[in-house]
C-alpha cells in the first residue's frame, strides 16, 4: 500500500436495507484540506453515504478507507469530528450545553482519564467558536433548534479533529445560527481542516465549498464545482438542491 492524502475514500460503496438498495457502487474521495458538499434530494442516499463512511451503516459492497487506513482497522477516531443531523431524542434527564460539548473530548482523552485543563480549554474554545460561550451552563433542551445544532458542532470541534463530517448542519436552522455556523466552519477550514458535509441548501456556506458531489437515487451524478443555483441544468438531482430556501425563516413552527 502507498501513502495517499485521501482523508475519506469510498470505493464502489453499496448499501441496502433488506431488499431496498440505497447506494449502488458509489465512489467518493475527499483529500486533505478539501471542503466537499454532498448534495441531492431527500432519499438520494447522501446521509447514508456519510454514515457508511463512518461505519455507522454496514456496507453491502465496496470499501471505505479513512486517512488511508481500511475502515475496519481505523482506530484514530480523534481525527474525525462527527455532527449528526440532530440531537438524539431527549430522554428527560437534563444535560447542560457544556456537558454535551465535553463529550467531544472523549475521543482524544479515552474512557478512563478524567478531564484536565486542556479539555476544559478546548471545550471553552469550541463554545466560543459557535457563539454559545454564555450558554454553557444552560440545559440543552432549553435551546432553539439552531442553537442545539451549534452545540453539536461545538462538540465535534472540541475534539480538535482534522476532518469534520456534518449531516445537514443547516437544515431548519435560523439565519443567525447559520451565520454563526458558517463563521465557525470558515475558521476550521482556515486552520487546514477537511470538511465533508451533507446539505440540502448551501446558503451562507456556499463560498466555503471547494467541490460538490450530487447524488441521485444512490448514484453519483455530478462531481465538480458547485452547480449554479439557477434551475436550468439537465442534472437530474439539481432541482431538489435548492428547495424553498426562503420558506424556512426559523424553527418557530417546528421546535
Amino acid at each position, binding site marked *: 500500500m502507498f501513502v495517499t492524502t485521501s482523508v475519506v475514500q469510498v470505493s464502489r460503496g453499496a448499501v441496502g436495507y433488506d431488499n431496498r438498495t440505497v447506494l449502488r457502487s458509489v465512489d467518493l474521495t475527499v483529500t486533505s484540506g478539501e471542503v466537499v458538499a454532498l448534495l441531492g434530494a431527500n432519499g438520494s442516499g447522501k446521509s447514508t453515504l456519510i454514515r457508511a463512511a463512518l461505519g455507522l451503516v454496514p456496507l453491502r459492497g465496496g470499501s471505505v478507507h479513512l486517512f488511508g487506513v481500511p475502515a475496519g482497522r481505523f482506530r484514530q477516531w480523534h481525527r474525525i469530528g462527527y455532527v449528526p443531523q440532530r440531537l438524539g431524542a431527549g430522554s428527560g*434527564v437534563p*444535560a447542560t450545553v457544556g456537558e454535551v460539548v465535553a*463529550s467531544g473530548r472523549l475521543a482524544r482523552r479515552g*474512557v478512563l482519564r478524567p478531564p484536565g485543563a486542556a479539555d476544559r480549554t478546548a471545550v471553552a474554545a469550541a463554545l466560543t467558536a459557535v457563539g454559545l460561550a454564555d450558554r454553557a451552563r444552560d440545559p440543552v433542551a432549553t435551546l432553539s433548534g439552531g442553537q442545539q445544532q451549534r452545540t453539536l458542532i461545538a462538540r465535534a470541534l472540541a475534539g480538535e479533529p482534522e476532518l469534520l463530517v456534518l449531516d445537514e448542519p443547516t437544515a431548519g436552522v435560523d439565519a443567525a445560527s447559520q451565520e454563526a455556523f458558517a463563521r465557525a466552519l470558515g475558521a476550521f477550514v482556515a486552520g487546514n481542516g477537511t470538511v465533508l458535509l451533507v446539505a440540502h441548501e448551501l446558503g451562507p456556506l456556499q463560498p466555503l465549498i471547494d467541490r460538490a458531489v450530487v447524488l441521485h437515487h444512490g448514484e453519483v451524478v455530478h462531481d465538480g464545482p458547485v452547480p449554479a443555483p439557477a434551475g436550468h441544468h439537465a442534472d437530474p438531482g439539481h432541482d431538489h438542491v435548492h428547495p424553498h430556501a426562503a420558506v424556512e425563516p426559523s424553527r418557530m413552527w417546528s421546535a
Partner: protein
Amino acid sequence: MSIFQYEFMIRALIGALVIGLAAPALGIYLVQRRMSLIGDGVGHVALTGVGVGLLLDRSPVLTAVIAAAVGAVAIELLRERGRTSGDMALALLFYGGIAGGVMLVGLAGDRSNANLMAYLFGSLTTASVEDLWVIVVLAAVVLTAMLLLRPALFAICHDEEYARVSGLPVRTLNLLIAVTTAVTVTIAMRAVGLLLVSALMVVPVATAQQITRGFRSTMAVAMIIGTASAGGGVWLAGTADTAMGATIVILAIAAFAATAVGAGTWRLLRRRAGMLAVHRRQPREVEPPEVVLDRPAEMVPERPA
C-alpha cells in the same frame, strides 16, 4: 431513636443507605436511554436465579447475580440489534424468569413461601453481617464504575452513534451497564424486593431531574434523594411497623410528588411574572392567534426531512 437499639435495625439501615446511594447512580443511565423498566425485567430473571440457589442449597444471592447478568446481557444484545421483535423477546424473558423462579422456589421445600415473599418484597431486617458485607462491597463496585466512567457512559447513553464515531468501546460499556444493572438489582432485592427494584433506580432520578439543569447535578441530587428515602424508609418502617421495602418506595414517590408540585408551582409563578413583565413593557407584542395558526399549515410539508 429507640428502634436503632436493635442490631438488625442498624444492619437494615446500613444496607438501605448503601443501596439508596448506589441504585440511582446506575439508574440515571437507564433513565437516560429510556429503559427505566429494565430493572424490573432483570429482577424477574433474577428470581429464577434465586430459585436455583434455594434448590441447590447455595447462596441465592450468587445464583441470582448470575441469572440476572445473563438476562441483562441477553436484553442488551437484543437492544443492540434493534429488532422489532425485541419487545416480544423481552416479554418472554420477563415472564419466563418469574414463572421459572416461582416454580423452582416452590420445589425447594417447606419454607419456600416465606422465602419467596422475602425476595419479592425485600427483607432487610433479616440480613446477616455477611449479607451486609456483600451488599456494601458490590454497591461500592457499582458506585465506583458509574462515577469513574461517567463521561463515557453519559456520551453513550446520550448519543450512541456519536460515541461510536468517537471510538469509544460502546459495546463493552453497554455490557458493563447491563452487568451492573444485574448486580444492583440483586443487592437491591434484599432491600425493597425484586418487584420494587426499579423504583430505587428510577424514582430518585425522576425526582431530581425536575429541579436540576445538568447531568452531573441530576446524578448527585438523585443519589442524595435515594439515600434519604432509604434511610427515612427504614426509620419509618421501624417506628410505624410497616413493610420496610414498600415504605422506602412510598417515601421516594412522595418525594417525587412533592417535588413535582413544588417545581410546577415555581414554573407557573415565574411564567406569570414573566408574562406580566412582557405585558407591562410591550403589550402589543403578542400576535393575534389566528396569524400564528395560519402559517404552519402551509409550511410544515415544505420542511426538508
